[in-house]
């Protein structure tokens, strides 16, 4: 198969060091300084974003605050401010929408858009300029252009910060020859080892590998998808979509601070409240629940359960997850609690039950959700959640990429 010879039509936009840059935009005194946004400002807090200056010093996303402070003791650590980041996201989305009606937010800091009229390089340059003028002069973005979403994302990573790169049929060999396998999105150590076993040691080897070999390496249809992606073709929606929902599960996690380490059930209740709310917002119901617990001594426990009926109500999700929790041998001294729901289905029809009025339950849940949407999440909540509203804070999930 040859590389896709069509003109590039996909733009991928990535906000550089998103949370940190937005904080530096808001507070000009922080600009050009090593700052990080971390889940907690305490030593064990996980860094969510490091400023460009901090990155140059070797401070990376995912590091603990204490490790970053070993590199630079005067590091400024900030807590995340989700409304601020959502606001910037919406403003950038509005700018992109003025160029195309096919704009897909991939996460809080990434967008993908399709433009079929050509002139992508000009459009991209204009977008960068408009972001500086209309959102903030300190906010920079890296833009990638290509024939499919995947290579557009790879292109956006070629030059950071403030980059603009293109991968097309004319330059793909040159670009691929300069990349390592692990520079590709979706190929980290595990996949790299997997490919090495089949003699694929470079991106060019990966590009030239036959489909049968990739199918063997990835254990099935994924191999074909990789072949198509690297050749600049979009995986068709029907192939990409494995179920009704592209999203396979909904869940939330929380790392309790030391003073809340023994309050597992109220925290689980709150996580169920958040997950249930998100689930119903997407008009979904589930028939599987999962619980993961990790304590401060390094011990972890997890269990999932397929349910005999579909659930959508917070109380039902909580009941099932509580049953899992009771089976766990870790109940106190917790460092991390994660819940998720799986086996998603569209909630367009309800299975009636013999002893329970499911329609009444659905109407009540909808009414509560409407009130919470209008007056703020947890305005009406379960009595068992006897914790203040800051216990499980507003967080922005890392989106798909």
């Amino acid at each position: 198969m040859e590389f896709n010879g069509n003109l590039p039509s996909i733009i991928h936009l990535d906000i550089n060091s998103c949370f940190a840059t937005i904080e530096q935009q808001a507070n000009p005194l922080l600009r050009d300084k090593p700052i990080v946004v971390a889940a907690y400002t305490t030593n064990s807090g996980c860094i969510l974003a490091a400023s460009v200056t901090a990155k140059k010093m070797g401070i990376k996303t995912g590091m603990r605050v204490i490790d970053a402070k070993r590199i630079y003791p005067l590091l400024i650590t900030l807590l995340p401010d989700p409304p601020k980041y959502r606001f910037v996201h919406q403003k950038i989305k509005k700018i992109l929408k003025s160029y195309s009606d096919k704009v897909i937010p991939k996460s809080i800091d990434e967008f993908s858009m399709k433009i079929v009229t050509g002139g992508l390089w000009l459009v991209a340059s204009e977008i960068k300029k408009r972001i500086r003028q209309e959102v903030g002069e300190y906010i920079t973005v890296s833009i990638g252009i290509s024939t499919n979403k995947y290579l557009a994302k790879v292109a956006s990573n070629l030059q950071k910060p403030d980059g603009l790169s293109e991968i097309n049929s004319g330059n793909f060999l040159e670009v691929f020859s300069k990349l390592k396998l692990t520079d590709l999105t979706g190929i980290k150590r595990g996949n790299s080892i997997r490919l090495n076993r089949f003699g694929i040691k470079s991106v060019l080897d990966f590009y030239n590998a036959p489909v049968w070999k990739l199918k063997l390496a990835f254990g099935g249809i994924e191999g074909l998808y990789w072949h198509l992606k690297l050749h600049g073709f979009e995986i068709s929606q029907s192939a990409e979509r494995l179920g009704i929902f592209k999203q396979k599960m909904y869940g939330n996690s929380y790392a309790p601070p030391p003073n809340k380490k023994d309050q597992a059930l109220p925290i689980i209740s709150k996580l169920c409240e958040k997950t249930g709310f998100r689930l119903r917002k997407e008009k979904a119901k589930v028939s599987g629940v999962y619980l993961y617990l990790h304590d401060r001594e390094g011990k972890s426990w997890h269990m999932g359960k397929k349910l005999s009926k579909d659930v959508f109500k917070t109380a039902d999700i909580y009941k099932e997850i509580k049953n899992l929790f009771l089976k766990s041998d870790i109940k106190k001294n917790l460092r991390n609690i994660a819940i998720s729901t799986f086996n998603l289905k569209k909630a367009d029809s309800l299975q009636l039950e013999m002893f329970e009025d499911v329609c009444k339950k659905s109407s009540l849940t909808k009414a509560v959700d409407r009130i919470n949407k209008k007056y703020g999440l947890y305005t009406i909540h379960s009595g068992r959640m006897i914790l203040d509203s800051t216990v499980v804070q507003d967080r922005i999930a890392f989106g798909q990429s």
Partner: protein
Amino acid sequence: MRNISEHVNVVLRDNTPLSITWKNRDYKVTKIGLQHNYYEGKTLIHIFSVLSGDLFLRLKFDSKNLTWNLMEIYQA
């Protein structure tokens, strides 16, 4: 960053803060870093992140009560 959460008086021009009076002292706004908004329930909240010389101030305007609060300050 120092959390404050105190009521302040703000003079506006074209819907943006021009000066802030806090503890009987006026602070002239020299730069607006970012203006963003969000809803607390059904109340629209406006946040202004501004500079007054080498002092950073984070202002919160409650569009329901029409009140201004100084939320945070930071000095480099």
